[in-house]
């Protein structure tokens, strides 16, 4: 239902209810008042009506009495002059309004009759009246005769004693009653009722409404109610009061009936009662017009606002025409306008945020994806990935805020360089530049310019940061025609670039470790771990003091069933990346310790060295597992050496130190592998339960030729010994190097000059024929 209709209905209902109740109460009050008034009037006028009837009788009687004294008439009566008497009676009858006059003899016989001669009884019908007249001088009563009401007056004719009676019948008809009513201010409805013989009252005379009143009366047999009674009949309501009239016994019973027509009385008040309805109609008219006007003034703007809202919903943020109104709707319209503006601004902002990087203000990865959507390569284009390798380090050092500002500055530098190409930030530490129309040469040229631009360090206050940029290049269509693939390839190239001298690399499919086949290598490695596809090689470790082989380093080798030998660097880093390194270490430990037990069984006193990965040091269960293996194979802990790199210890120091300590507490010797190329600090190493330093082979390989290397090696050996470590040199490839190491007091040597890593069968042969025999167990020797 519309607002307009509801408003109209409400106003209509309110007004109608109000006016109807007003009219109802006015009607009820008027009606009650009129009923009381009517009853009072009837009660007051009841006796008056009867008295008026009696008065009529008395007037007639006195007229007749005068007549009866007329000397001539008396003479005529006495002389029985009937003609004279008849004419005199007729004459007088006209005067008093009588329809019939009789001369009745003393014996009750009718002597003279002004009515039809011969009609009627020869005797007077109401002898009781004669008797009363004889004794009282005159008698009168209302009687009913032949369906008419009469005042019957009987007067004796005295000459001077009664000689006859004159009787006069004056009809009490409608006119007479009307006259009485007028004279005495009686109620309008008057009637005379007679016992009709059938038990019910019958109207003899009265006002037009009289017959109806008489019908309302109770049966003749019942008493007439002495109080006014409220009666309803024929759809009208009357208050009725009936009084019995005295009649001679020869006449049927009669009653005077008075009525107060309530409906008619109410009719006078109709204007008052109807006034509310008139007012209602007028008010309804006003209310209708008012409601239409108000509703229109509300509905029109609301419709306009609804239209504006739908427009905004559809994305048209033009603010709606402001309404002329100042009320609530005006406010709503203004609010809608400002809402549209706010939504528009916010949408722009969101759209900007969705496509831009918050830190640098450059396009983001998603925006770049959109730009590179579809098939690329025509014309040829280049995607350059510019990465800042040191960014993580910088952030950790100077904080993220400066890191962010540095990246913002980097973005600006790129924008200044690239012309109409597109710049986007694609990861925390990398931007991408998408240059349409750039072939390989143009891309390389652009990359060089970028590298040059970033040679100038970022300056902020007195802080100078050299954010070294590396650039990987992928070309479309050469390396791919699809945006995602190009990004991936540029990323791979970036990885390569970040390790190269020039800092720029083009994608090389052959060098890409992230090709799909790489993934299959991982699953193959898992399979190899399960199926003993791996083999353990052993490299002899020469004790320079005794000149015997005192131990061996276990090195894992993987013979891939299809690819052949896989280099250890490749599959170990793969195992580290894929979380399989712990399984690999477990396998290496198990097979190494088992081999040590075999050697012991053969009476050989060889220490076995096993490499641990950085991930192994994060495993708190490692020491217990190692202890269990040693116990199972009955190998003393002193015959197991675990090698870790400097970097592994530095990566996660707390956990690593805890694990190392537990291992050392079991009596297992720990060795720092590749010592000299990492970033360990000596003071830090001092806190570790380390027993041995292994000098990186890069220092040893050219020992005979390089004086610097000789100084370093000599210094490390001296330093190690002074700190209480034994020192092992790796990469011993010639006799000269071995001789120098012996000269420097180095404890152990390892290298191809002594023996390459070899399978266990070859190692056994090597021990049997070698220049350097194995140490033997004391018990066996």
């Amino acid at each position, binding site marked *: 239902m519309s607002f307009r209709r509801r408003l109209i209905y409400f106003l209509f209902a309110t007004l109608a209810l109000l006016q109807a109740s007003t009219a109802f109460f006015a009607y009820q009050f008027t009606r009650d008042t009129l009923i009381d008034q009517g009853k009072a009037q009837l009660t007051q006028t009841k006796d008056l009506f009867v008295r008026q009837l009696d008065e009529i009788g008395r007037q007639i009687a006195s007229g007749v009495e005068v007549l009866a*004294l007329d000397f001539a008439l008396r003479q005529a009566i006495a002389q029985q002059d009937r003609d004279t008497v008849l004419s005199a009676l007729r004459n007088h009858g006209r005067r008093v309004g009588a329809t019939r006059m009789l001369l009745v*003899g003393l014996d009750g016989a009718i002597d003279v009759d002004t009515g039809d001669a011969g009609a009627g009884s020869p005797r007077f019908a109401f002898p009781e009246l004669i008797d009363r007249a004889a*004794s009282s001088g005159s008698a009168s009563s209302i009687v009913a005769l032949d369906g008419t009401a009469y005042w019957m007056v009987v007067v004796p004719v*005295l000459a001077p*004693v009664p000689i006859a009676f004159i009787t006069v019948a004056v009809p009490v008809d409608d006119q007479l009653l009307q006259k009485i009513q007028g004279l005495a201010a009686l109620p309008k409805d008057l009637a005379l009722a007679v016992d009709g013989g059938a038990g019910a009252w019958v109207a003899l005379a009265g006002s037009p409404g009289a017959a109806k009143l008489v019908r309302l009366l109770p049966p003749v047999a019942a008493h007439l109610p002495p109080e006014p009674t409220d009666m309803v009949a024929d759809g009208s309501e009357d208050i009725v009061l009936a009084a019995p009239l005295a009649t001679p016994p020869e006449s049927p019973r009669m009653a005077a009936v008075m009525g107060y027509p309530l409906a008619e009385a109410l009719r006078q008040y109709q204007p008052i009662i109807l006034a509310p309805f008139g007012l209602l109609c007028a008010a309804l008219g006003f209310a209708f017009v008012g409601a239409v006007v108000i509703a229109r003034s509300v509905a029109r703007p609301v419709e306009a606002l609804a239209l504006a809202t739908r427009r905004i919903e559809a994305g048209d943020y033009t603010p709606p025409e402001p309404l002329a109104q100042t009320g609530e709707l005006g406010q709503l319209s203004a609010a809608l306008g400002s809402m549209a503006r706010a939504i528009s601004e916010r949408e722009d902002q969101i759209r900007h945020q969705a496509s831009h990087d918050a830190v640098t203000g450059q396009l983001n990865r998603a925006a770049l994806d959109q730009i590179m959507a579809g098939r690329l390569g025509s014309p040829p284009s280049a995607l350059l990935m510019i990465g800042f390798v040191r960014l993580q380090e910088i952030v950790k050092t100077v904080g993220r805020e400066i890191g962010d500002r540095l990246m913002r500055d980097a973005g600006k530098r790129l924008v200044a360089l690239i012309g109409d190409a597109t710049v986007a930030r694609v990861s925390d530490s990398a931007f991408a530049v998408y240059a349409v129309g750039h072939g390989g040469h143009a891309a390389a040229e652009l990359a060089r310019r970028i590298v040059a631009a970033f040679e100038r360090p970022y300056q902020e206050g007195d802080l100078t940061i050299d954010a070294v940029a590396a650039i990987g290049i992928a070309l479309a269509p050469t390396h791919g025609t699809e945006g995602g693939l190009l990004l991936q390839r540029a990323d791979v190239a970036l990885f390569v670039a970040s390790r190269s001298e020039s800092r720029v690399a083009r994608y090389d499919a052959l060098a890409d470790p992230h090709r799909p086949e790489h993934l299959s290598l991982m699953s193959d490695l898992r399979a190899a771990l399960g199926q003993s596809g791996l083999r353990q090689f052993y490299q002899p470790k020469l004790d320079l003091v005794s000149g015997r082989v005192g131990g061996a380093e276990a090195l894992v080798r993987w013979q891939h069933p299809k690819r052949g030998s896989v280099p250890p660097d490749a599959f170990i880093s793969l195992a580290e990346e894929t979380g399989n390194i712990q399984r690999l270490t477990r396998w290496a430990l198990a097979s190494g310790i088992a081999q040590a037990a075999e050697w012991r069984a053969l009476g050989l006193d060889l220490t076995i060295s096993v490499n641990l990965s950085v991930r192994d040091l994060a495993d708190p269960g490692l020491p217990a597992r190692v202890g269990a293996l040693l116990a199972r194979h009955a190998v003393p802990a002193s015959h197991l050496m675990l090698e870790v790199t400097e970097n592994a210890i530095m990566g996660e120091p707390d956990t690593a130190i805890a694990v190392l300590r537990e291992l050392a507490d079991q009596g297992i010797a720990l060795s720092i592998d590749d010592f000299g190329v990492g970033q360990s600090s000596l003071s830090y190493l001092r806190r570790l339960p380390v027993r041995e330093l292994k000098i990186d082979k890069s220092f040893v390989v050219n020992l005979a030729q390089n004086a610097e290397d000789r100084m370093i090696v000599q210094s490390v050996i001296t330093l190690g010994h002074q700190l209480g470590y034994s020192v092992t040199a790796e990469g011993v490839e010639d006799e000269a190097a071995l001789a120098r190491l012996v000269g420097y007091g180095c404890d152990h040597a390892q290298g191809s000059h002594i023996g390459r890593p070899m399978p266990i069968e070859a190692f056994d042969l090597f021990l049997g024929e070698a220049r350097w025999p194995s140490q033997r167990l004391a018990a066996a020797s």
Partner: protein
Amino acid sequence: MNIRCGRSVCALIVLIGTAGVGRAGAGELLSVVSDDDGKPVADAVVALVPTDPALLAAAEPALWAPWQSGVVDQRDETFLPSVEIIARGGQVVFRNNDVPQHHVYSFSPVKAFEFVLKPGTSSAPVVFDKTGVAAIGCNIHDQMIAYIYVTETPWVVLTDKTGQGRIAALPQGAFTARIWHPSLPPGKPVPSRPLTISQGLETLPVTLALLPMRHPDREHGLY
């Protein structure tokens, strides 16, 4: 006097025998008339009519003498007496002793007449030659009524205030006593009693059912 309507009639007749009057001796009758309430009724006429007409013919002329003439006076707008007994053929003179004129009339079949009497004048004698009662009125004063009782028998009496009337010199024999009074209901037969007169006094008690007086007490002239 205010006499009310009676309900019944009972008679007590006392015959008083009188000696020496007439051929066959003489009796005497005392009539005592009262109304229903037992009050004495004055102005009642008791007339004894002998069953044997010979007795009437044999009545001595002296018996008729009191009834041969009468005077009806008018004083204070009243006829006095109100009942006058006259023998048939007797004369009545109406005499105005009053201040206003009186218009005396009678419509009675017994004797109809009318004349105007100026104060201080008397009428010519009016001869009543029919028996019966003539009601005399005044056309000027309705309340004035007098009755002339024209009797056929000399044995007649008008009761006094005590309601008594005495008739003497009655011959022995059978009689009918006729009792009349102005207040008897009109048009009804006159009450009568058969009785037999012998020697000595007899008493005739009569109770009359009378109409209430239509006119107020004339003696006091009230209306």
